[in-house]
């Protein structure tokens, strides 16, 4: 049963899949859904071969430009920098943001050897220099590394007269102050704003 064992082992590459779920998946595909297994295999191969990074924003796409960067409806003057492709989906789903994105695929992390080059910052710097971008929204994670990454990007944008904003950090909607952790509450307090 080398093939079946191999399949079970490979399925465990997926996040959230341990030996038990992998076995269930493998049996399901082999016993109940051979056609599905063929389709899955074919699509997986095609995706692995063809999906690359968008030339403008580094997000995943099988074309030169991703749908957002290629869309004429998006405002090219607004750029939102995020850490991961999942963050793009989160912002798209929750906000009415109409600008474009830049996906770093990580954050500056000195002890893991992740510096500006690994995050495509040279590419970002060129886009700032092109003069197309008027507003930059820094939506990196609210962690120390995310903040430092944001700070670094802000320093790249500075010479180009770009308005730079950072998304707000604070008390979650429906959150009770008493149960908010100290770091968050401090951030929320220090960036309080005029009541309107």
């Amino acid at each position: 049963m080398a093939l079946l064992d191999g399949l079970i082992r490979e399925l465990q590459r997926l996040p959230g899949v341990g030996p038990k779920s992998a076995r269930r998946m493998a049996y399901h595909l082999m016993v109940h859904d051979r056609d599905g297994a063929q389709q899955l295999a074919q699509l997986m191969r095609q995706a692995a071969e063809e999906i690359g990074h968008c030339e403008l924003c580094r997000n995943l796409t099988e074309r030169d430009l991703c749908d957002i960067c290629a869309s004429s409806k998006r405002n090219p003057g607004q750029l939102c920098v995020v850490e991961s492709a999942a963050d793009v989906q989160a912002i798209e789903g929750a906000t009415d943001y109409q600008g474009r994105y830049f996906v770093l695929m990580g954050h500056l992390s000195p002890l893991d050897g992740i510096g500006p080059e690994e995050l495509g910052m040279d590419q970002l710097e060129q886009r700032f220099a092109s003069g197309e971008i008027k507003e930059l929204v820094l939506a990196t994670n609210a962690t120390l590394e995310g903040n430092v990454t944001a700070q670094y990007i802000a320093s790249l944008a500075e010479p180009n007269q770009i308005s730079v904003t950072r998304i707000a950090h604070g008390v979650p909607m429906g959150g009770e102050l008493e149960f908010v952790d100290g770091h968050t509450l401090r951030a929320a307090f220090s960036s309080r704003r005029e009541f309107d």
Partner: protein
Amino acid sequence: MNRTIVERQPGYLLHSRPYRDSSALLEIWSRDHGRVGLVARGARRAKSPWRGLLDNFQPLSISWGGKGELKTLRGLESGPLMTPPVGEALAAAYYINELLLRTCMRQDPHPGLYARYTAMLEVLATDQPFEPQLRYFELQLLNELGYGADFYTDCHGDELLPSGVYQFVADQGAVPLLPRDTALNAGDQRDDRTREPVGEKVTGRLLMALAQEQLEDDQLMAAKRLMRVLLRPHLGNRPLESRRLWAVYSKLGKTDAVRH
């Protein structure tokens, strides 16, 4: 191995990386247990109570348990909040974290070095110059690891002369150089003996200033080079990542733009 339970231990997060779906592997630096490796189960889940707390350079109160080398995080509370270091100070803070990760064994307590670490972060949170403190930290690290060198007597047991020039040799300490060897690099024939030579050649004055924690500004460069030479054998083959990125962080300066 014995099952241990540690409650509310003061400490800091040295490094964390994602582990499995929603957990994290932490390396912490604690007062009474030194470096400890912990699994933080579910720490990256949306509702994890630990999410906002897993930042470097913040005092924490940490509880863990379990047997084996890797323990399980059981509780995490925030200590008094500290302003995180910025710019070069941040680079220096990452550097000391990396030093501890590379050199200290897990579960090897270093309370003296822990106190030094805490004091170091306090200096780094301010605008004060931190270079001398960084050297004293490195020196104490070497001493605690058992690789401390004698900074008062030379390899023959004679007292160091402030104006004497010595070469630092691993396992031997300060080897006095004969006058003809004190001519430094080619073209560097300086008469001024109080200026510091380059590399492993150092004056007695520098060694004593380091040991007494009284470095002067004009000694900082030489002290940095000496400590680099002394630390090198203990850091393994890979270059330090934090050193590579020093330039990046230095560029950030002390702006308040994104800080909170």
